[in-house]
């Protein structure tokens, strides 16, 4: 099957659910406005199953509808950075035997972002969901620079300490601040002639590997990523570079 549509209860029924707010008071006409709006989006069989006022001048709707559109999934490539993850012991073994030295990693929540929950889950010894953080690996020397780190400071640190991999984290995405910060970091590394020397990795709940690739990063890790997945990527990629 290549042409795929959303599945409600029958193949190719194209069923979707939507919910949204309109900045108008609620009445029967508001329901009709919501129905027509969803129709104008290209959906058919539009049913406004719930419409109600949520404040003066604002209405909320839950809508079911069908889409006539299908997508050819055979043409889509979005490789995850996480192939099969190794265990901590396997990563340490790989680093010890193939690199013969410790790998230096610097992590930070860059720009004005103060949300360290993601970078801490990956780096802190305790880790996440029973998967130990990178600080616990024998093969890694980890520097967690913390929150609100200017990209200039991170690049300076990486250059001065001969860092092998940089982990940049962004949780706040308002007005594209995450993409702006990620881009600034990549550009500054280029300008300082450090880009080729480091693995550059983006992380955050809204990050995908595809987005990271578009921004010129080596990998991107999104929500639910385990520390061992990041560790595996770093170790394998550095070993590949040595082999190449």
């Amino acid at each position, binding site marked *: 099957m290549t042409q795929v549509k959303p599945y409600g209860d029958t193949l190719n029924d194209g069923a979707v659910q939507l*919910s*949204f*707010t309109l900045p108008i008071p609620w009445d029967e006409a508001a329901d009709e406005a919501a129905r027509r709006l969803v129709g104008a989006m290209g959906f058919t069989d539009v049913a406004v199953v719930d419409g109600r006022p*949520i*404040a*003066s*001048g*604002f209405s*909320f709707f839950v809508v079911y509808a069908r889409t006539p559109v299908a997508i050819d999934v055979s043409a889509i490539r979005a490789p995850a950075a996480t192939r099969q993850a190794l265990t901590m012991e396997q990563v340490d073994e790989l680093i010890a035997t193939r690199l013969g030295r410790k790998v230096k990693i610097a992590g930070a929540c860059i720009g*004005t*972002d*103060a*949300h*360290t*929950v993601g970078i*801490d889950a990956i780096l*802190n010894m*305790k880790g996440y*969901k029973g998967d130990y953080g990178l600080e616990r690996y024998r093969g890694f020397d980890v520097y967690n620079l*913390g*929150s*609100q780190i200017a990209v200039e400071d991170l690049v300076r640190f990486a250059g001065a300490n001969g860092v092998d991999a940089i982990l940049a984290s962004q949780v*706040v*995405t*308002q*007005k594209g*601040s995450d993409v702006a910060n990620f881009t600034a970091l990549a550009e500054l590394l280029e300008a300082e002639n450090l880009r080729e020397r480091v693995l550059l990795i983006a992380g955050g*709940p*809204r990050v995908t590997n595809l987005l990271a690739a578009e921004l010129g990063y080596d990998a991107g890790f999104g*929500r*639910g990523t385990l520390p061992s997945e990041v560790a595996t990527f770093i170790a394998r990629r550095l070993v590949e570079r040595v082999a190449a």
Partner: protein
Amino acid sequence: MELRIDADAVARARRLAAAIVDPIAAFIDRHSTLSVERAVARLCGVDGVDGDGVPLPNRLVDALPRREDGLARALGAACAETGRTPQQAAEAVAAGEPLADPARTPEIATRAALRPWVERGLARIDAARREREALLARLPQDEPPLLYVIVASGNIYEDRTAAIAAAEAGAQIVAVIRSTAQSLLDYVPYGATTEGFGGTYATQENFRIMRAALDDVSERLGRYVMLTNYASGLCMPEIAATAALERLDMLLNDSMYGILFRDINMQRTFVDQHFSRRLNARSGIVINTGEDNYLTTADAVEQAPAVLASQFVNEAFAHRAGLPDAQIGLGDAYEIDPDREDGFLLQVAQAQLARQIFPNAPLKYMPPTKHMTGDVFKGHLIDAMFNLTSVMTGQTIHLCGMLTEAIHTPFLGDRALALDNARYVMRTARHFGDEIAIKPGGRIERRAQDVLAGAVRILDGVAERGLMRAIEDGTFADVRRPREGGRGFEGVFAKGEDYWNPFADALAEESVPA
């Protein structure tokens, strides 16, 4: 429902917390900070910015000939010598005039010149407090848990729209989240602001805009809607001063949060939190402490004793600053992994434990964030369990969880759904907690007893080493902070023999033991 807990252990924890805080209180008495001094300027009526956008309180403090004497002495001397008002004196400094050495002015003249401005500042704070009390009497709130939502668009005018909509949908408290970098700014931005990341700058004008909008909607709805902001970071005392003047009702204010989670120097934080809380006490503002942060950065089950230990320490610091129990909103959060069997039981144990140990404190209960993934349907369900825990254990300040947590700052519709969720659960289970008994010796009670014992062990260790040493050793949240490291240390100074802070003097006089 009632847990059987060891009253001796609770009393012991309080004694230990007092012993931990006493040496810090002595340190606080001997020191001041640039932010405390800037707060003094604001309370004397100094406001506005210079041509480069630098706030006048900063210009004044930077111009102090001898900072160990405090700002009041120099400002009072300037007013006495020139006949200017504090605002005019600040404008003169901004225009390039130096501040004269206050030692040249007789102390009696200095004090006399500043006294009317000090009295006016205190009178404004007292008037705001009386106005709040009158409004609450005339427009009573719904019963707790008080539903609290955040607005965080970055634009104060969008925030105003969101706040009004939230109030209409049932919110009783609205907090304006600050722009992420503000805690690290060593000044308070000025004027109405429309740009911010992950939040909106806290400024005096933004406070006024929100207060006016919420007063308006309070009248319309017939119930008072409270306004909250953040007295944390490098400008804690100035925010407390501004909030007192503009009748905010609550402030996030923690005795250790900035040290651990923002790398702000510990000496700076201890001195700043004390003066802030003195102001909060006078202005009737309820503080919200930040224990939820221990749970979001580490395992929530393991950290439960640390949360309780921190609550005891926050309470002890608050009492030292004259805050009565009714103004101490101790924090906790619903952050246990949803995949854990009986996690709900552990949450109930922790929430009920805090309720019984701090019976008169308006406890602040924070929603799940760490395990919210983007699955909005599951997120809405976890929030419902959080809502149930809150109503059955009698929490007071209830920050409504958003189904879109971890996706974006809340949409207007997200807030309405969250409020609907909370109102439904709290209505349908309103008296559930009164009707059930906790099984003696069962899982919930045993857990509560373990957490209490764990908190006493932590406090024991901290009391032995001293709080500053304990923080240096990484006792709290596994974070190590050196005594002289972190941001803002250069702004801490020892008071000189001639130091004078008329507000600190006035606020200390009427301190109420809780």
